[in-house]
């Protein structure tokens, strides 16, 4: 799943969704591990983001975003590649961005995999990586005295990755294993089906994991993997986001030393644009296990632009209409208890993406009735203006939640990674919150009017529940 707008509350962060929503997020958000977080800060210059930021771009296009903050000697070191499963436009290569993320741990001539691993282990780093539709992130939580070593290691593997075909094939087995561990989830099944149905041409039509046939064929793609590296792992397609106990001048100096010789040459992918959807699509999703029915409605949406009031209004609409204090939540979750949870998510994407409305229905007989209630809720928001108070409460909540999530360097970097990858910089954060303040009740109504049946996919997974 694409991530969320900065500061969007975690759906079900409170009790509303319970364990099931955590499962949705765990399965769909990223392949790897995502940060989470919570805490706060002040408001130094009328801006939302509470810490100083230094942005530098090296001659080769590598962008540095440096955020010094109190952290007791800890540093978050994130290499954000602006390539994800969106860039897998060639047939038969779905899932490759994620697979390639694994290959990045296979070493270089200077630092073979076992030595890289030993060095990272010795410094007690919290190191991992993940891939989503629009980005691949490599992140390390380290002590500040290890910063230069990490910089040397990361610069080396991003420029001089080297692995043989045997290592390549071995890693393909691990990736297939990752698919195996996820495939039993009903949310994974319906997510895969919704994507494939909603998009005719665009690469958002496949999940980050990729189609299983392509995953099985990965061991044969060694040569392609080298081309993939040459195309996308270039300084003009990467952002270094470093937060914590750092001295920005010193970091810039080290970046020039270790990354300065990296040759630019990013080749943008030829991603086919998605044609306008003109009629509703409906699917029943098979599932081999047992599950309560799951409903997933996906509306086509615009690409994320932080200054786009329409987009930001749709983000607010999702919470107002389907969030835990919405009338629909009260009716379906609390009063009638027809569903376990209901939530909506507006995907933050580089290209036009989706607005997802997801619910798990307790009574299989009530699936159609729940679909009807979702429709009538949208119809009501198309006719009526939301109250001023509810809109103001939501704006305040979003801002607060964003700030409360910025309490550690890693949480800061995790909160910013997607918006940096999608927009190419950190400026979008302030722009988003400025736009947020401008959104009116009428904007929210207009956002609802864009939720038309011909722009949506309706999927139902009717598991054989006991």
């Amino acid at each position, binding site marked *: 799943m694409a991530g969320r707008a900065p500061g969007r509350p975690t759906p079900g*962060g*409170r*009790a*509303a969704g*319970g*364990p*099931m929503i955590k*499962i949705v997020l765990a399965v769909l958000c990223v392949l790897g*591990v995502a940060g989470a977080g*919570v*805490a*706060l800060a002040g408001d130094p210059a009328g801006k939302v983001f509470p810490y100083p930021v230094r942005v530098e771009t090296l001659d080769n296009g590598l962008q540095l975003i440096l955020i010094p903050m*109190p952290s*007791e*000697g*800890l540093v978050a070191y994130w290499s954000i590649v602006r390539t994800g499963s969106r860039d897998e436009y060639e047939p038969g290569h779905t899932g490759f961005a994620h697979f390639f993320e694994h290959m990045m741990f296979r070493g270089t001539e200077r630092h073979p995999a076992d030595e890289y*691993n030993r060095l*990272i*282990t010795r*410094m*007690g*780093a*919290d*190191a991992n990586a993940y891939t989503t539709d629009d980005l691949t992130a490599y992140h390390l*939580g*380290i*002590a*500040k*005295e290890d910063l230069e070593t990490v910089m040397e290691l990361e610069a080396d593997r991003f420029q001089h990755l080297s692995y043989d075909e*045997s290592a*390549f*094939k*071995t890693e*393909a*087995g*691990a990736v297939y*294993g*990752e698919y*195996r*561990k996820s495939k*039993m989830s009903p*949310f994974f099944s319906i997510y895969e089906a919704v994507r494939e149905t909603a998009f005719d041409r665009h690469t958002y039509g496949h999940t980050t994991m990729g189609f299983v046939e392509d995953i099985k064929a990965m061991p044969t793609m060694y040569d392609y993997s080298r081309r993939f590296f040459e195309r996308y792992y270039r300084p003009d397609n990467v952002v270094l986001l470093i937060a914590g106990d750092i001295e920005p001048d010193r970091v810039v100096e080290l970046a020039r030393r270790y990354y300065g010789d990296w040759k630019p040459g990013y080749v943008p992918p030829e991603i086919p644009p998605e044609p306008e959807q003109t009629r509703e699509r409906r699917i029943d999703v098979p599932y081999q*296990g*047992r*599950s*309560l029915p799951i409903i997933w409605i996906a509306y086509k949406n615009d690409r994320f632009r932080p200054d786009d009031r329409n987009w930001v209004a749709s983000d607010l609409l999702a919470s107002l209409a389907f969030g835990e*204090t919405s009338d629909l939540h*009260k009716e379906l*979750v*609390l009063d009638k*208890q027809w569903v*376990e949870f209901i939530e909506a998510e507006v995907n933050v994407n580089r290209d036009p993406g989706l607005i997802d409305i997801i619910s798990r229905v307790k009574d299989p007989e009530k699936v159609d009735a729940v679909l009807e209630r979702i429709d009538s809720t949208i119809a009501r928001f198309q006719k009526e203006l939301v109250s001023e108070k509810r809109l103001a*409460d939501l704006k*305040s*909540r979003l801002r607060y939640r964003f700030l*409360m999530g910025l*309490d550690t360097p*890693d949480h800061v970097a995790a909160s910013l990674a997607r918006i940096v990858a999608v927009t190419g910089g950190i400026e979008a954060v302030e722009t988003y919150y400025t736009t947020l303040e401008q959104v009116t009740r009428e904007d929210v109504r207009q956002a609802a009017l864009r939720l038309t049946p011909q722009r949506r996919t309706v999927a139902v997974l009717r*598991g054989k529940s*006991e």
Partner: protein
Amino acid sequence: MIRRPACPLVVLSLLVAAGCGGSERMDDMVLLPVPEDPTVSFDLWFAVGSLDDPPGKEGLAYVTGQLLAQGATANNSYEEILEKLYPLAASYDVRVDKEMTTLTGRVHRDKLDEYLPLLVDAFLRPAFREDDFERVRSDALNYVRNTLRYASDEELGKAALWLDVFEGTGYAHPVQGTVAGLEAISLDDVKRFYAEHFTRDNLVIGVGGGYDDAVVERLREARASLPAGRPAARPAPEPRPLEGRRVLLVSKPGADASISFGFPIDVRRGDPDFYALWVANSWLGEHRNSSSHLYQVIREARGLNYGDYSYIEAFPEGGQRTMPPTNVGRRQQLFEVWIRTLPNEQAHFALRAAVRELAHLVDHGLTEEQFELTRSFLSKYVLHFADTTAARLGYAIDDRFYGIEGSHLENFRRRLADLTLEEVNAAIRRHLQYRNLDIAIVTGDAERLAEALASDAPSPISYAAPKPPEILAEDEEIATYPLKIPRDRIRIVPVTEIFER
């Protein structure tokens, strides 16, 4: 070594009260003041958990706990609570484990006045309404019936291991309960359970962050309003006797193989050997980390699956988190190996590989190089375990559970400095073994796997790519490594029956 202040910033204000690295303790309070933190974190620990579920009512502690966080109070309906919390961007939640129930929350201190009454009501004045009860109970039933059985084979495998080790005891069933247990629970059961266990003498209040004395006083008053008394503590469960190896196969059509195995250990956090054993276990199987030796053998060298880890403490939700959870203290722990999902035809080989590595560790211990590398790793890695006030507060509450003086994590870092290889290897010899194992496997190929295990037939493996000769030579040893599991010690349970009662 990392250059940190001699005491972490977060506990500087505690120096007088508790000394570096610890939180302030009173009989009923754990205080972790962090004046520069603009938020306040709460961790209210009730000494009750699923171990206290009455037989036949498995899930009662879970449902009761969930109703505190997801139900009405005397002053507000659940809907009203959600409405009031919403603009505060605050929340509270509950975690129920086998011996602990914790109500946790976090709020910006500007919003404390609005938040605190809601939090206090949650544990002091739960309304236990019928509609909330039905909602929470049906969610729990769906979790056991559908989610646990069908949505994640890895979680299912781990739950099956605890079931097999502790069969017949209060540790056997999932914290969420069993199908029959949940169906048998009534709202009156919940009210009685609450009255019995949610008493002032069963509660330790944890507060951390930028709070002031008024908050502490308010919580102390609230606590005093709870009835006195403390039910007799349930004894720690006795695991089933384990001589040799036994296997529980959870038969699930269409499933690949998800393997967990282990055995009870008699060492817990705070015991003299715990830190030495921690080092050994970290080398063998650090959670979600490529430094894990098992990971290197099974995933990195052979590409069989996504990861392979080991544990000396319970680690719920391991697939969803990288750092250990807090507030899951248990008096009885397992040494546990988790082999992530792999093809059924490779399950026998992977199990052999993991048992063989465990045996090697037990027989030979760590080398000096392995010990030093792991010590270096852990000395900094544990800093990531508790990098927020809420996490530190969680550890401080757990310190109370285990009766630890000072701070567990700080104690560990200090102990690491003078720990020796001999101590680590002695702890391995004292607490780890490989001859008596409980093995749980979720599989879509149960009958064949049962026969293969019972016959101890070779389980050769092949690869899509050429492998170094040393790997192939080792494979031959692994493929014929004897597991010695008689057929009558292998039982097959259909997935539809597990956790039914």
